[in-house]
């Protein structure tokens, strides 16, 4: 076996959160080998991940590495434990194009990026006329990856049609969907790829300013982007003949609504991020009143790929409902949460079960599109994932967040969760969104508290439809979706809550008691010690009046003698 010449450690946010930095420090102490701090390969469940690159060009990966001596020595001796292989099913289904370099190269090393084909797309673009570049994008069939799915080539041509160069291209990196992290991962792992896409856009549309609007919760992404921008300036990659492109990065300040383009522009201009009526569209009057175009991170991440392989070749991947590949942030109740890239049109079955390794018998549904999307029940998992198929089910592609919901989760509570989010994120401008989502949230609170009635369901449906119709921006237009979708597919769960005051998932606290099965109890008293409220008596009876259903005792019980049961059931 050949020897190790280099180590790579995944130090994107997920790697760091899993303890990667300690592993990195331990490795540094243990060896003089060069250690590359790379991004995320998408297998977040396996973090911290260390890759040992061998002299023969092959490599061995180690997952869930700990900072202890044994784990480190295992790697350095290429020992057998913790060796990591990409699960075969995932390998078969995945197609890494946008993510090809993620976790393989050092994000802040321009040379590493160019050595692996970086900036070839830009070079190719500069050899074409702007019209030809836009034509390639049109041929690729690329549609906006931020959620709306508007054809990217067409969007570019609108901006290109505006005279002069006093124009702005904005990268929307305000990944607001709670439960999505595609953009974070791309910016952290391959910042140059995103910037390359933006530079190509600047060339093709005639824009002189590039602005990245990134959420402040992503400090590592911001750091990597800033370094990459400096490198671009230094290498003069932003200079096209006599045009020099200005690149800047602005941090968002925590407002989901700023994903909406007019709100995003207001925020960039230092205002409250409130959307305005369109027209005028940003291509007519946008950032600083100048023509402006906004694409999201993943869209820009696709651009270098399109330029490198050509629009037609790009379009050969995917389906009628969408071309190319799509990134999904898989999370929730499954074995392999992480970031995946599959051809458009891959079915939910393939993504959730084959790639995600979810337990077929345990999955109830998947939520796509986050708070703007809807749930899709497991019975419909043969649906191909593309813009149009998802919309027909009342869900949306969204940016690519995909949350697997297990059978032990309550769909009403899930809907309540999303409305809790959207009603707080509403900017407050439109009556329907501001008050309507609040009223919907209140009704859902009532239902999960066992105080709803059947008429509430009609009220939710009616109000939901009106909010969608009577709101200015995408937030209000989609906020009721999680409720409408769950009402469509899981009305029976709602009915159980309102008519029988039962939550079959045993999740809604007001409808649940925590009870101790004395036949299983071994009187170890761990639960008594754990309970923060002393709600368990010395003879092991849980007082429902004191108990807050915090589950502390459930976790503490070695015999699983404590369970959540329907209120009133003995």
């Amino acid at each position: 076996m050949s020897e190790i010449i280099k180590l790579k450690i995944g130090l994107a946010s997920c790697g760091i959160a899993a303890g990667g930095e300690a592993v990195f420090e331990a490795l540094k102490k243990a060896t003089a080998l060069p250690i590359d701090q790379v991004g995320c390969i998408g297998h977040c469940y396996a973090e911290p991940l260390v890759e040992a690159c061998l002299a023969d060009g092959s490599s061995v990966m180690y997952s869930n590495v700990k900072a202890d001596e044994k784990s480190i020595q295992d790697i350095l001796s290429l020992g057998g434990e913790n060796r990591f292989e990409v699960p075969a099913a995932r390998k078969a289904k995945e197609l890494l194009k946008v993510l090809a370099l993620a976790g393989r190269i050092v994000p802040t090393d321009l040379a590493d990026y160019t050595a692996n084909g970086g900036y070839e797309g830009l070079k190719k673009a500069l050899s074409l006329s702007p019209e030809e570049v836009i034509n390639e994008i049109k041929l690729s069939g690329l549609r906006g990856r931020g959620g709306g799915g508007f054809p990217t080539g067409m969007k570019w041509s609108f901006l290109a049609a505006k005279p002069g160069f006093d124009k702005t291209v904005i990268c929307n990196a305000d990944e607001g969907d709670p439960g999505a992290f595609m953009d974070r991962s791309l910016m952290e792992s391959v910042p140059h790829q995103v910037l390359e896409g933006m530079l190509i856009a600047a060339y093709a549309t005639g824009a002189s300013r590039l602005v990245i609007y990134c959420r402040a919760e992503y400090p590592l992404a911001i750091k990597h982007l800033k370094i990459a921008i400096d490198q671009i300036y230094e290498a003069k990659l932003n200079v096209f003949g006599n045009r020099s492109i200005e690149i800047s990065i602005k941090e968002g300040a925590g407002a989901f609504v700023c994903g909406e383009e007019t709100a995003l522009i207001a925020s960039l201009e230092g205002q409250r991020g409130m959307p305005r009526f369109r027209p005028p569209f940003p291509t007519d009057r946008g950032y600083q009143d100048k023509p402006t175009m906004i694409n999201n991170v993943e869209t820009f991440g696709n651009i270098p790929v399109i330029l490198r392989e050509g629009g037609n070749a790009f379009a050969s991947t995917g389906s009628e409902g969408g071309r190319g590949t799509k990134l999904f942030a898989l999370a929730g109740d499954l074995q392999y949460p992480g970031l995946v890239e599959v051809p458009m049109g891959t079915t939910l079955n393939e993504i959730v079960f084959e790639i995600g390794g979810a337990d077929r018998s345990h999955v109830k549904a998947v939520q796509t599109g986050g708070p703007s999307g809807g749930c899709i029940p497991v019975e419909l998992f043969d649906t191909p994932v593309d813009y149009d198929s998802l919309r027909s089910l009342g869900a949306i592609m969204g940016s690519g967040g995909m949350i697997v919901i297990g059978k032990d989760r309550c769909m009403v509570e899930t809907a309540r969760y999303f409305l809790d989010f959207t009603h707080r994120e509403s900017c407050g401008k439109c009556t329907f969104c501001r008050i309507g989502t609040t009223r919907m949230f209140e009704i859902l609170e009532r239902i999960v508290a066992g105080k709803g009635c059947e008429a509430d369901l009609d009220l939710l449906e009616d109000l939901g439809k009106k909010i969608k119709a009577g709101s200015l921006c995408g937030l209000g237009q989609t906020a009721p979706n999680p409720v409408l979708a769950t009402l469509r597919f899981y009305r029976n769960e709602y009915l159980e809550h309102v008519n029988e005051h039962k939550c079959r998932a045993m999740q809604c606290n007001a409808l649940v008691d925590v009870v101790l099965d004395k036949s299983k109890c071994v009187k170890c008293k761990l639960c008594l010690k754990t309970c923060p409220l002393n709600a368990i008596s010395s003879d092991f009876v849980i007082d429902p009046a004191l108990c807050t259903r915090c589950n502390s005792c459930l976790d503490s019980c070695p015999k699983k003698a404590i369970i959540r049961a329907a209120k009133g059931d003995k």
Partner: protein
Amino acid sequence: MSIEFFLDGKAVTAEAGQTIMDVARANGINIPGLCGDKRISKTTSCFVCVVKDKKTGKFLPSCSAMPANGQEIEVTSAEVLEMRRTALNLLLSEHNGDCEAPCTLACPAHAAVEEYVRAAANGDFAKALQIIKERIPMPITVGRVCPRFCEKQCRRNVDGEPVAINEFKRLAADMCYDSYMEDLPVLSGKKAAIVGGGPAGLAAAYYLRLRGIAPVIFEQMDKSGGMTRYGIPEYRLPKNLLDKEIAHFEKMGVEFVYGKKLGGNLTLSELEQNFDAVIIAIGCWQASGMRCEGEELATPGINFLRNVIENNCSAPNPGKVLVVGGGNTAMDCLRTSVRLGSPEVTCIYRRSEAEMPAEKIEIAEAKEEGVNFQFLTAPVKLEKRNGKLILTCQKMTLGEPDASGRRKPVPEAGSDFEIEADTVIAAIGQKTCAPADIPVNRYGCVEVGNDGVTVRSGLYSAGDCVSGAATVVEALASGRRAAMAAARDLLGIPVEEENPINVSRGNWQELSADELVVLRDNLSAEPREKLSFIPLTERKTTFKEVCATMSAAQLAKEGKRCIECSCSDKADCKLREFAGQSGCRTDAYSGVRQAASYDVRHPEIIQDRGKCIKCGICVKICKEVVNKSLLSLQKRGFASCIGTAFDQGFPDSCRECGECINACPTGALDWRKKR
């Protein structure tokens, strides 16, 4: 370059820069909207102005959307109206304010209480009387006998006693009644006959005359006033004052014909032949019996009272008196008996004191005058033995609440006992006694349509004969409605409808003192002014009026106790106006309302955030028109609000130009002094 498109199917043309709303307005279609102001950039916030693009199926805010060639816009389709109604209902659901004050809402005549209290407290009694008479044409009477629905809902009940509202009416009337004269319009030539000269008939005549219709009242007795004359004792309503009150109607040109009884010497058909409209206001003059054996031996309460009044308060001593019943008529009978010299007066009532329908003050005054009360006692049998009346009663206990919400009395077996008396008065209730050609319902009351007054076109009815025995103020309100219905049918004068939209901060019973919203200056913390009574011995032996009218000085103090609950913007609040027009309901959506975080720190300007619709017009006006930027939108979502810097209120740099106030569609920003 003009654009051709369609509004509700009609081809219209838009000039450059015109919104759909602009074009609609130019074509005579007013689309309501709350958040627009031509001087500032678009706010596009309220969505009340939504219209529908028929082809795309999308709803557009017409204040902001520009029309496109060939576009088909629906402005008044059911779907559009439903969206509009929903937007308004949502705004109402978060609105924290009082459109009308609770006193006005509680008043059956919907009198502008806050306004007349303010006028009188400021010493302008003529103005107060004018405001009162817009709804209450018999203020001398009502100022004395009203059970004061208004005071029962007064928010001052939270921290003490209600404002003495009725005393304002009484003094204003006492001071200015003689000199007051309405502006009378020229008579139209239409004539109306009114049967019955009680308060309902008088009110009908009054408001008909004010609409140019000549009223003629046909009265069966030889004097008018109805129950106010023959049912209310002298000590509560001196008849010389009633005469003065009614004389004013004659001065106004109301014609009275006495001694005419419908179904007797007067027929409906002759009235219908000779008049353009007929209003039946014959009252409830048939007393109900005790519903027990021997009930015919009892004197009906109203007959007893009428007999005393007709004899100028000089009826013979009734001896030992038992009055059966617990209403106001029973109290009148009891107290009249005391005054006639009865040695022992007892009230027999089958429930407990708490359930008694009589006014608390009446009960208290009766007790002061020495009346006995025997509660939870019901008559079983009345008989005459040896020249004495013997009333056999049984004891009762209270069971489950009945349909009226009061606990139902249940007889106690074997509890019968006898009481001896010289006079037994049955004051149980009264019924309408309508002639055969008037349609009646199963309660014997005149059957009317949904408006509460129209029997059929040209024939109307008002007062007790429609509602069953009720109060003077209710009869006046009913008479006014009948007059308006007749004026609508005869002259096409629109009925003055109350705005059905009345957001309320809640009944005082649900509020605590610190939840009271006080937008006025120097609210008085003094207790309610006291009435002065004549000495008890005089009360018990004469029919002199029991208490005196409060003085102007007292009322000036009392007026400062009024919180002035109603919204300063109630007359021109666009939200209320459009909601009223759109069939909205204040309870369409329940949920948390905006906090009552009002700001009265500025001497001239009130900021009442609970009424804000977050349109932000004020912010833009201050920034774009006044060039000050003293206001801003703060927070977001449901919690968003309009604020000044650091919540310090309007700073000195505000030059009180009033632009924000004028632009505010609701009462969220207003001048502090109510005009």
